[in-house]
């Protein structure tokens, strides 16, 4: 059964050859060069939020935050999820950028550091306003681009160290701990682990018995922790996890091993379950990172620039790539964070950089 007839195949060959021979290869015409910043009517702005998946509480809250902001300006947010698949993320971005990019605002969570490069290049070429969060290679800087407005992240070294210190206190200054790392190819995972190392240096009584990657996943953390618990037994006094999901997985493992309450657990991100766990004492500490705010703020910055309320040139250099404020949450102050609240005032164009806690060096 032939799918194409011989003439058709020949024709395709010929035309391909012709095209190749003429060699008129060139760069694709880049999008809407005419779309200068600040020429968009508010109603023209198209808001896109992209995260890994909606089946993860933190990222679902992020998208919800984006929706809240979009509603506050009378728009809606297009929600994209790529299931943690770098390839699919690029495919979606390039498809979005192939549409009308004149007043397009992207608030993107890149899957890994390296995924940021093609996203930035693509958006820049197409002329879309882009805010990225969490992951970017250190040498890629928003200041070098017109439309890459800002990169927002939390100071992972700081948070990793903060919870490390909290852990050290919780285990009474000395004892063995294990560390659960995130996806190794992310700045977040690397920075947080660097923070732990700094903390270990400071708290000399605390010994790192083992470290394994559990890829930010609750299920993987459960399996890894169980194995490490049998491997090191009672020597483990504390568990340092690079995010709360893994910390919660570790908690389950402790419970199953009958050691719940005897081992201190810390995490980062302040997801609701972790806050509950801190409240009832099964977890020691976490560091706030505010998903709903992140989902809204990225769109807000883009929106403000697109509508002309904010000029790129006016954004202070330190705000083009910044650490957002974060707080160590322990049993003492957990009450303040239990009810997540997004303050609409945060998204006002004058306030978008209110939570800057420092510039990315």
């Amino acid at each position, binding site marked *: 059964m032939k799918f194409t007839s011989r003439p058709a195949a020949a024709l*395709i060959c010929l035309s391909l050859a012709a095209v190749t021979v003429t060699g008129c290869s060139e760069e694709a015409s880049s999008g809407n060069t005419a779309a200068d910043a600040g020429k968009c009517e508010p109603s023209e702005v198209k808001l896109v939020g992209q995260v890994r998946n909606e089946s993860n509480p933190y990222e679902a809250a992020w998208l919800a935050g984006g929706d809240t902001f979009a509603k506050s300006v009378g728009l809606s947010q297009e*929600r994209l999820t790529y299931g943690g698949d770098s390839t699919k993320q690029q*495919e979606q971005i*390039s498809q979005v950028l192939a*549409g009308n990019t004149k007043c397009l605002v992207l608030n993107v969570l890149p899957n*890994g550091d*390296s*995924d940021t490069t093609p996203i930035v290049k693509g958006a820049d070429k197409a002329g879309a306003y882009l805010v990225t969060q969490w992951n970017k290679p250190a040498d890629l800087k928003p200041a070098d681009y017109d439309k890459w407005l800002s990169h927002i992240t939390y100071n992972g070294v700081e948070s990793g160290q903060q919870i490390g210190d909290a852990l050290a206190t919780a285990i009474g200054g000395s004892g063995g701990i294990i560390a659960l790392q995130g996806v*190794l190819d992310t700045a977040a995972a690397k920075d947080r682990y660097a923070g732990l190392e700094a903390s270990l240096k400071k708290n000399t009584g605390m010994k790192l018995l083992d470290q394994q990657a559990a890829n930010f996943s609750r299920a993987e953390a459960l399996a890894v922790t169980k194995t490490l618990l049998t491997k090191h037994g009672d020597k483990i006094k504390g568990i340092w996890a690079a995010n709360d999901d893994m910390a919660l997985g570790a908690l389950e493992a402790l419970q199953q091993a009958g050691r719940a309450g005897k081992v201190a657990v810390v995490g980062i991100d302040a997801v609701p379950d972790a806050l509950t766990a801190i409240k009832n004492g099964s977890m020691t500490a976490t560091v706030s990172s505010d998903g709903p705010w992140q989902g809204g703020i990225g769109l807000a910055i883009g929106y403000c620039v697109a509508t002309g309320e904010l000029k790129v040139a006016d954004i202070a250099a330190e705000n083009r790539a910044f650490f957002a404020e974060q707080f160590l949450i322990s049993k003492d102050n957990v009450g303040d964070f239990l009810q997540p609240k997004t303050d609409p005032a945060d998204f006002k164009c004058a306030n978008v950089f209110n939570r800057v806690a420092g510039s990315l060096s």
Partner: protein
Amino acid sequence: MSTPVTTKPAAAPATVKGGPGPAQRLTSYMPLIALAVLLAALTIADPEFLTQRSLTAASRTAAPLIVLAAGATLVVLCGGIDLSIAALASVSTVFLALWLPELGALATPAVILVAAAIGALQGVAHVLLRIPSFIVTLGGMSIFSAVALVVSDAGTVRVVDDSTIAWLDLYVGGYVPMSLTVAVIVVVLISVVLKVTPLHSWISATGYSESAARLAGTPVDLVKIGAFCVSGACAGLAAVMLVSRQFSGSPTMADNLLLPAVAAIVVGGTAITGGHGSVWRSLAGALVVTLLRVGLPIVGVPSAYEQILYGAIIVAAVALTLDRSKVLIIK
């Protein structure tokens, strides 16, 4: 061994007349029809989808998938399956990213050659050890992933100077992505080579009836090893395309393309039992799958419904495109 009594005289119509019937002809165009229907549906859902820029982006996206599917189609035509293509492509992206600084332009052919050799190695294992291809390539899949993790130290290898592979990101005539052009050239090349050499006969014979092919003196083992080799080479080429698109290599970069590639082959109407099918069909199938992957979210289908639709449409597409007159027992 007990041989089952064949209950039906091998589908022999009473009147012997040449040429396929209209229904059969329709089946052979099903992949194209499915593609057109899908495109129409996406356009109705979002009229902006049917623009030149959008189609250009979609076709650029489809290129690595087309190449992967085209290579694996050969293995499927021989009656086997190659589950290692995605992992092989992933490890190839790592190799390419690591070698580019030293080898420059030579890195591309080097990676394709290495991938081809690895593919051939799997073919040899399959043929000599008589292990089903499903198992060999399943094992290969985990081994390649492990190698990729170790070689890259589980991290992404960034490509700083991508000048030697940047040509893949150009556009022919301003509209047609170079990567798509290369993918189509690969498809054309494979199908022309099959068409003008005895290979087509050998591959089909191997796929339809391996024992008959062997007893006719067909080099069945070589044909299979060759198919795995081409499949490997295609995985290598797909890796080059991915690296040129992402500016980096990563040990898991292409992993998620395995099931879409297999889906592309089957949606194209190539029988998973072997013999019947073509690389052209896989080209159409890869476009269908790409439209589903990127088109559904872009036209605003929420992610939960996107997966449900994807599953349902894939099954429906296979139900439509499969030529059941060629396959007797469906497992």
